């Protein structure tokens, strides 16, 4: 039989059927060869010969190949990492990996057949409830791709609710997020205007008031902002409320254990990046975009929603609902085109939050803040260093050095320390010596002291 070249008793492609099976199957189908089945594909369109790919490998060879690739990486999670900017090196309890490695969860499909997907559905419902609890909002969905696209979706949603096409966004977000926003809104004629930041690193409220007009659909508040600084959320909310625009709050979920939850300052839509909730850093993907909103806006919201319901004999159960908003029903008029989202990452977040619990999660936030504050105390007085935005931060702050940021980061890297993210490229106004430093509960006093030593050496060397 042409085309089937596997040797009997051995295969690379996880196929169970034998040549004998295939022979019988072709006979049942009523053809003599695979070629007959491929008859609709005209031969001029077929691949001549073989694809140019590496030869097949045994499992052991694959493992060896990936061991070599792995050896080319120095993962942040094994170093003393002060990298943040949205992705953080937090402690992840073993329960998370264990539950996620259960094939009942990871090999299941989207829960379209609800009767045999109650595990997935209930876990999403519980995840939604936890996001609602953290944010103090009424509704959360089953997940979006990541923080940046969640923010983009929230702007599309707000513009659709208000039937307006302008959004005001803090200038203090990284270029990569601005790129996502620009790319997402380009087809919808939505205008994004950026509000500068003040010398304290906060949103310029005066500029906000000036730019906020009757055409504005939404204002985005980032809390804490990209520089780690805590904004005056209530004040900003009041200004936005008065204008009639919607308030979109982009929040760090860990900060919500200690900062005022966005529902309490009347946010209309809350979005963010959920990686901190038990997900590995994974080179930036998969991540977990979350979105929560007021109940009045739920029919305009993107993505999947799970609701509690009953079965025909009254058993409590769970099901995907309000699907008439979604692409498979509404097609061109859906609230979003999203289908597959980040289901397993939402499960990770639920297992994480369940494992550390109310008190443990608060401890994560408190320790991260305390350690960030400790590092701040250790380095703020060092020669040549400055912390331009002061101590009004959660777990991350901007540090200005007496040398170019890249020089400092390279020096630190040699000593096993990832000392932060260079800010000069995205924010030329901050100069070329500014780095964004993040501290989580995973860092020890010793790590902080090592950081201090590196700063001291760099400063002293000048």
């Amino acid at each position: 039989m042409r085309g089937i070249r596997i040797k009997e008793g051995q295969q690379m492609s996880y196929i169970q059927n034998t040549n004998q099976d295939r022979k019988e199957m072709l006979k049942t189908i009523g053809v003599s060869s695979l070629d007959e089945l491929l008859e609709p594909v005209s031969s001029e369109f077929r691949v001549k010969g073989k694809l140019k790919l590496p030869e097949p490998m045994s499992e052991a060879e694959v493992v060896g190949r990936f061991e070599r690739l792995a050896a080319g990486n120095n993962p942040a999670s094994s170093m003393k990492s002060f990298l943040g900017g949205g992705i953080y090196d937090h402690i992840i309890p073993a329960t998370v990996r264990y539950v996620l490695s259960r094939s009942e969860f990871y090999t299941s499909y989207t829960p379209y057949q609800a009767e045999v997907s109650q595990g997935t559905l209930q876990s999403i419902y519980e995840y939604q409830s936890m996001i609602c609890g953290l944010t103090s909002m009424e509704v959360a969905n089953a997940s979006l791709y990541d923080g940046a696209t969640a923010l983009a979706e929230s702007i599309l949603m707000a513009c659709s609710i208000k039937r307006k096409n302008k959004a005001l966004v803090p200038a203090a977000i990284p270029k990569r997020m601005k790129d996502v926003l620009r790319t997402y809104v380009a087809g919808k004629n939505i205008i994004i205007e950026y509000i500068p930041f003040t010398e304290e690193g906060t949103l310029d409220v005066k500029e906000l008031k000036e730019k906020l007009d009757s055409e504005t659909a939404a204002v985005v508040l980032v809390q804490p902002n990209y520089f780690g600084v805590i904004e005056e959320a209530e004040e900003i909310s009041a200004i936005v409320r008065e204008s009639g625009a919607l308030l979109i709050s982009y929040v760090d979920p860990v900060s919500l254990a200690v900062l005022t939850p966005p529902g309490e300052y009347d946010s209309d839509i809350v979005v963010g990046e959920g990686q901190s909730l038990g997900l590995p850093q994974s080179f930036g993907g998969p991540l977990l975009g979350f979105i929560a909103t007021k109940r009045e806006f739920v029919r305009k919201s993107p993505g999947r929603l799970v609701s509690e319901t009953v079965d025909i004999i009254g058993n409590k159960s769970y099901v995907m609902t309000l699907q008439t908003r979604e692409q498979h029903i509404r097609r061109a008029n859906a609230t979003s085109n999203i289908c597959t989202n980040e289901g397993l990452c939402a499960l990770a977040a639920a297992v994480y939050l369940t494992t550390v619990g109310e008190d443990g999660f608060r401890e994560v936030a408190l320790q991260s803040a305390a350690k960030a504050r400790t590092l701040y105390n250790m380095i703020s007085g060092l020669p040549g260093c400055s912390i331009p935005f002061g101590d009004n931060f959660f777990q991350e702050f901007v540090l200005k050095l007496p040398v170019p940021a890249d020089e400092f980061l390279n020096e630190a890297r040699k000593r096993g320390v990832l000392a932060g993210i260079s800010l000069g490229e995205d924010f030329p106004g901050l100069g070329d010596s500014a780095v964004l430093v993040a501290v989580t509960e995973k860092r020890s006093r010793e790590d902080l002291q090592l950081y201090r030593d590196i700063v001291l050496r760099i400063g002293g060397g000048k």
Partner: protein
Amino acid sequence: MTGTIFDKGLHGRSGKYIPENDCPVDEALLPIQRKSSLGLPRIAEQGVIRHYMELASKNYHIDKGIYPLGSCTMKYNPVVNEEIARDNSFCGLHPAQDEADVQGALELIFNLQEALCEICGMDSFTLQPAAGAHGELTGIMIARDYFRERGEDRKFVIVPDSAHGTNPASVSTCGFTPVTLKSDERGMINPADLKEIISSETAVLMLTLPNTLGLFERDIGKIVKIAHDAGVLIYMDGANMNALMGIVQPGKIGIDIMHLNLHKTFSTPHGGGGPGSGPVGVREHLSAFLPIPGVVKKMDNFEFSWGSEKSIGKVHSYFGNFNVFVKAYAYICRLGAEGLREVSENAIINANYLMELVGRFYDVKYPGPCMHEFVASAVNLKEHGVSTLDVAKRLLDYGVHAPTVYFPLIVKEALMIEPVETEKKETLDSFAEIMEKISYEAANNPDLLHEAPVSTPVRRLDEAYAARNPDFRWHERK
């Protein structure tokens, strides 16, 4: 019924996972504003594991049995890929790390880009989109910017009526207007119909190949010519690429843009609804429009390339779902060219075999060889008052998963069946036997179907109740 984690853990206590704080700071110096509870449970570790294992026991999954969801390509997810991807050297990388510290990751991304180019006959690939629909969005954005750059104001995207809902949704999200192209009596695009609706205002022809009926467009050559003659780009939804590996390279037959679903064709798990990955490939004239950054090889080093002025921008915070790439690349390494072709050949044989068996008891509107899937219909059971939904639910009682139902929309009472290559003949035989039994039950005891499922963790759900009284979050009941 399983109580929620909140019912179980509201008043318990959690384990301790965070070490003692060796940097105590006066709390007055910390930004502590929140007074309200977070609403999280307090539950010890064994309770956590028991809860999630109880939930796990209520899920159907690939490791349990056949999952013949049409268009979803629910194939075996090799366990070695999971093991490899869990390596800290892959999942512990921060995206802002120095290129020198992530050479292995960049090499992997580069190699995967190259392999996908070869499999699809494309000139360049971006791995940034996080799912298939995200890939569609990216691809249509590329087309949008391509025409903008040329100064051409084209408003319409032609989408066949058999397309996935994500297709028109992605089109309208990009600001284009979708125009529906009716399939002909063969279930295919008829070149004459296409000619009629295509115009100088058409930007893109968005087709699925093989289409959602599992059919390879017989007139693809003519279709490509009509589109290209009108200056129209051709987008291929590659959700069904499992039928074509090593058989057709879409880029070589005139497809300009396409996406793949690594979580379908390349064996990475669906995770109950993601994370997926939807890489987009383009031919040379569109390479400059791909999202930034890509990964290039310079001498022996791998680095990000921040692309051209023409790039559409970014569609993801970083580089896409990297951890999914690890698994997909492991799969490609294991199979090689021969293995990938075996996959598609066996997917086609399995689908045609099952179509032959199921077709003995159910309507198959478009007979003749299918590719990797086929669409049957339960319309012949209507006379017994039985619907496709009833058949699907009865299948659950027999311990197998149902096919995709009521899709594509152009087939009444559709049952869209994709057996995939990793299922063996005996499993297909037994699935067909169950389908046969159900067709007899429909005639002789239709109530069995109306009441189904009876052996699942819950009975048929009241979806209307949920839509009328949605309850999205748990509240403590006093």
